[in-house]
């Protein structure tokens, strides 16, 4: 018997803010341990939380982008449990009144996945578990998070991955989050249960905690549906429990069952009065929503790019941003796309360099493209110049220092042609008698006289005219 897989996903996403959810300490990455904190993040006695406006704004952006209903009265609750990475012994979250609810996300197939809620909360400290001790860094403690909870609308690991990707793209394009799983700014918990096809109810669900990559999401879902299916087929039942994915064995392992589940004793956070969001501010946020990835792709196609090129450019937000800045400086839109998709991405891949870390400047690339267009340099020279632009140099400066500037002054070139023809008067007759190599000879002589700087295409045109007597 085959079963239908029922999947719901909870995503924790770190918000991109300057300071923490409830304290004015900075959000940083890679700073010395316990140096981006204050007494609030360490839950020293007597400290009180103070809600970060930008975190609320970013949560609202996520809500709007996911078509959520907004609760304009922001309230927080305490989730009580003891764990060494949770300094207060409770997490401030939004259990009873999430800021957003009843939204949806559209998969690439067009299927809509309903969202149960989006709520704000705070991150925990980072722990390093060594063989004989645990080391703790509180820089991450208090970093703003949104938790995005889907309804159990997903039916396969492919859909689950599609869902995560769609959400990731939305969050990245809103600038709500870096949305990088590999850096931990997005973490997934998966709820999974099976049911016989055609059956309307739900089977017992199992939660798999803290999946940190798309590959692991896929593996965990595959393993878990197989495990549950086997249990059912052997006439056994699935226990409601929380499991974790073990990367080494690529299996899921039990953490705790429903019987030992914690009672979080939620209650309203008394230190934060309910906060009313003004209509004016909400409108301002809606009116200034950053363009979504989808809208951007469509706009790029409208600029004349192919669907594929637009999709690749948008697939990385820094790349799309680079493209947009570059076309501010040149109208050679297709050429910009080509240079980015072929040469620039090629370089990034070869060097394993993120687009955001490129030294190449949009203005420099635009200038390069214009220099080719107006025939100041040849495409062969352009490759040489581009290599220099990747070092952060300006196009004009490179071309000048290399003495590459082509001569496109028609009068000057004509004078050189006249010189060559005067020196070799038989050329015109030869040409007219059908000897094509006369043309090549003239162009070659002109190039020689100009030390290679004469624009070859222009020289050829002018020489043709001179030889044919037009």
């Amino acid at each position, binding site marked *: 018997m085959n079963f239908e897989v029922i999947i719901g996903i909870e995503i924790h996403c770190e918000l991109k803010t300057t300071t923490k959810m409830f304290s004015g300490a900075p959000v940083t990455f890679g700073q010395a341990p316990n*140096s981006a904190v204050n007494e609030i993040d360490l839950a020293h006695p007597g400290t009180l939380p103070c809600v970060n*406006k930008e975190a609320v704004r970013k949560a609202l952006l996520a809500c709007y982008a996911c078509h959520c209903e907004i609760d304009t009265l922001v309230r927080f609750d305490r989730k009580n449990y003891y764990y060494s990475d949770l300094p207060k012994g409770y997490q401030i979250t939004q259990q009873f009144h999430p800021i957003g609810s009843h939204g949806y996300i559209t998969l690439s197939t067009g299927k809509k996945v309903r969202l149960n809620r989006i709520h704000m909360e705070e991150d925990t400290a980072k*722990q*390093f578990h060594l063989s004989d*001790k*645990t*080391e703790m860094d509180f820089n991450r403690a208090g970093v703003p998070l949104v938790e995005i909870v889907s309804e159990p609308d997903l039916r396969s690991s492919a859909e689950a991955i599609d869902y995560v990707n769609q959400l990731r793209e939305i969050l990245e394009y809103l600038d709500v989050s870096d949305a990088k799983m590999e850096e931990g700014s997005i973490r997934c918990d998966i709820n999974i249960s099976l049911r016989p096809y055609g059956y309307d109810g739900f089977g017992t669900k199992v939660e798999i905690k803290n999946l940190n990559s798309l590959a692991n999401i896929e593996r965990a879902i595959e393993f878990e549906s197989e495990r549950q299916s086997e249990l059912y087929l052997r006439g056994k039942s699935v226990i409601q429990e929380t499991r974790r994915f073990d990367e080494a064995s690529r299996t899921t392992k039990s953490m705790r069952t429903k019987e030992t589940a914690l009672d979080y004793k939620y209650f309203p956070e008394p230190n934060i009065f*309910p906060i009313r969001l003004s209509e004016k501010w909400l409108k301002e946020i809606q009116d200034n929503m950053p363009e979504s990835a989808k809208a951007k792709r469509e706009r790029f196609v409208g600029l004349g790019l192919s669907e594929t090129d637009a999709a690749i450019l948008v697939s990385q937000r820094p790349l799309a941003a680079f493209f947009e800045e570059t076309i501010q400086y040149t109208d050679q839109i297709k050429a910009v796309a080509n240079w980015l998709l072929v040469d620039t991405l090629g370089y990034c891949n070869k060097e394993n360099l993120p687009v955001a870390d490129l030294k190449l400047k949009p203005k420099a690339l635009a200038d390069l493209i214009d220099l080719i267009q107006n025939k100041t340099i040849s495409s062969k020279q352009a490759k040489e110049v581009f290599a220099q632009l990747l070092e952060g140099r300006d196009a004009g400066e490179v071309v000048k220092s290399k003495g590459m500037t082509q001569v496109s002054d028609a009068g000057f070139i004509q004078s050189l042609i006249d010189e060559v023809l005067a020196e070799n008067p038989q050329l015109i007759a030869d040409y007219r008698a059908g000897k094509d190599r006369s043309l090549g000879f003239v162009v070659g002589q002109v190039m020689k006289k100009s030390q290679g700087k004469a624009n070859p295409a222009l020289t050829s045109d002018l020489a043709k005219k001179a030889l044919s007597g037009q």
Partner: protein
Amino acid sequence: MKHDQAFVIQLANQLMFTLSENEAREINEDFDVLLAQLDLLDDVNTENVEPMAYPFEDETDFLREDVVSHVITQDEALANVKVEDAGLIVVPKVVK
């Protein structure tokens, strides 16, 4: 509402402390008093009354601007810590 000595001990352990036999017995007896006091609450009809979580329920609109306003130094962060190593707080191994 259920309560017995074992339950009291379980509650305490969830709160990350232990109780002696005597302490657990005393608390368990306390619950009888607590429940008796509850009768006093039950004398008050609270139908259609919302819980009051704050003394005042005037809504605010204040939110903190997202500007770094207060950081303490690593030395201060570790000032009350027993064991540290290269700026990290060191504790025995987490079992859970």
